[in-house]
């Protein structure tokens, strides 16, 4: 469905992506993991047309899209939920959703809004409220709902878990899995490797602009390097206790939490 071939992207003279290739097949959840500054967001912005690749080619459903502008790429069925949510803060929740359907000219927009409210009931309660007054988790839900309003074939999520409470991270990831069940293909970018690998089918590991590893989610989870670097199973990382009764690793409130690699909520890098 999506094919990225040997793409290099530069910021000025700085090479942010170096000959990156990846594929996403229809119906898959593919995750891209990596530390801060590895180039994850750059890759996403290159795919969606906001940045231009200097070398390489990107195909969506076998059509080259590297030379198209962002609006044309959205029109083809690729939807991008940008980093740090980027909702239209001064506009109402409803207006945000309507903007998500900007390129559509069909009478089903109302139905899709109703569906979004079904998926995220909190948004229905807040539909008249300015998006900037929502909590972080609500804004993330709004950003995803807005991304879905264009009825994308491929949804690209840029770090949906950043800054969210652990339980909310789980909720968001459950929604991601649910979206796939409804037929949307997903490219998920995460620093939070553990959480991402739990829902993904396959994954790529990006380091300093290179894809260093790829494989199924099980393979990556089992990989020693990945465990050391991203899942924190090495000796050099301090393990924090995670409560078993609250499912999915809610870290206890303890000083070690900041370096807790098991916690899906951890924001830090790989050290």
């Amino acid at each position, binding site marked *: 469905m999506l094919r990225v071939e040997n793409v290099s992207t530069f910021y000025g003279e700085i090479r942010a992506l170096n000959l990156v290739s990846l594929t996403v097949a229809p119906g898959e959840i593919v995750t891209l993991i990596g530390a801060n500054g590895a180039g994850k967001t750059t890759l996403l912005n290159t795919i969606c047309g906001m940045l231009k690749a200097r070398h390489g080619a990107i195909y969506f459903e076998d059509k080259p899209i590297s030379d198209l502008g962002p609006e044309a790429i959205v029109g083809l069925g690729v939807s991008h*939920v940008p980093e740090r949510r980027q909702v239209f803060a001064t506009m109402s929740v409803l207006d945000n959703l309507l*903007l998500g359907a900007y390129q559509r000219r069909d009478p089903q927009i109302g139905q899709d809004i109703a569906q979004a409210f079904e998926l995220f009931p909190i948004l229905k309660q807040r539909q008249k409220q300015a998006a900037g007054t929502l909590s972080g988790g609500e804004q993330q839900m709004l950003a995803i709902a807005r*991304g879905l309003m264009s009825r994308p074939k491929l949804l690209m999520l840029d770090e949906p878990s950043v800054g969210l409470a652990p339980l909310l991270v789980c909720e968001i990831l459950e929604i991601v899995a649910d979206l796939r069940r409804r037929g949307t293909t997903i490219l998920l970018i995460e620093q939070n490797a553990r959480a991402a690998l739990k829902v993904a089918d396959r994954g790529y590991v990006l380091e300093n602009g290179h894809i260093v590893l790829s494989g199924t989610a099980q393979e990556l989870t089992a990989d020693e390097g990945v465990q050391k670097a991203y899942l924190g199973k090495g000796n050099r990382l301090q393990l924090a206790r995670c409560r078993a009764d609250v499912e999915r690793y809610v870290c206890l409130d303890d000083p070690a939490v900041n370096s807790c690699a098991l916690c899906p909520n951890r924001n830090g890098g790989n050290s």
Partner: protein
Amino acid sequence: MNLQRQPTALRSLGVNARAFSRDFIGYLVLILLLGGMGWIEIVQPGDLSLPKLTGGLLTLDMLTRVGLFTIVLVGLNLLMGYAGQVSLGQAAFYGMGAFFSAILTTRAAALGIPASLSQAWWWAWLVMFAGMLLTGACAYLIGVPILRLRGHYLAMATLGMGVVVYVLLKENLAVPQLNLTGGFDGVHSIPRLRIGDFVIWPVTRYFVLVWFFTFLVIALGLNIVNSRYGRVLRAIHASQSAAESVGVAVHKSKAQIFALSAALASLAGSLYAHFQAAVIPATFGFGESLELVIMSSVGGLASIWGAPFGAFAVLLLKELLRTQLRVVFPGVKGEFEAIAFGVLLIVIMISMPEGLTTGMLKAYRRWRAARVLKQEIAESLEPLGMK
């Protein structure tokens, strides 16, 4: 540009109901005010007239100017208040419209336009609308490169554009042998507008004509704000990258609104030329652009209704200072007008940063809420025998 409203399924969600009732009140207030003042001036009941009633402060001439500025400001508010793109060169488009009309109605013969065309009553109207199109197209071409800039840089670029246009007007468009713009002295003896043999003059008739156009423009502005395109403008203001990510052609939309605001300024300029019967480049310099921005902020940037009230407030304030400052403080000189004007502007912007219309609306809501609260407190204390 697509001005189509949302599909009907959405209207059932009440998207536009509130906006509509607010706009209705706006129309009503403005029509009553203008109708009242126009009626007094045209009918002059019991020998009363507007200047007499207000001590020379309000004249039909001044209200006509308010209408002209409102047309420019609706465009400017869409551009600055809604789309968030600063323009410090709007007077350039105002001037382009004015000079386009002035030149093509007075110097038609020199330009080789046959008299059968240029003497026809519809020629001036045709020129007016051609001027709008041309200025709009011009703005679109200028807008594509400069609207890629943001914030201060955009302000600088539009400022530069304003200066270039001003100098071109002053220097005869760089072709002095044709003497098209009349240099520093401008163009004189611009004919009045006509419909058939009906001349739209004296000022009572022109007042009606200008406000007819003004209401059309206000209606257009409100329609845009409440449409899909208006949502796009606000989205660009809120977050350009997010607008891109939902598939809005950001640069195109910005150039479009820039072109629209320029076309509106050009319309006002043409109307101004036929109103004043003479235009000089000095009217369309940086000072005028700045004054437009001031009017826009005083009225309220992100509000179409702010346009007429902003224009009215600023013109009235200047007139008040010009005539009354000497009365209150004998012995002050001309410069003090500017000082007092500046101080008053600061007071307005501090007390009502969202502009007069939104500011007063909010003040009214606060006052009403305070009154309700006061009553509730009184009621809760009553059974205790307290006051």
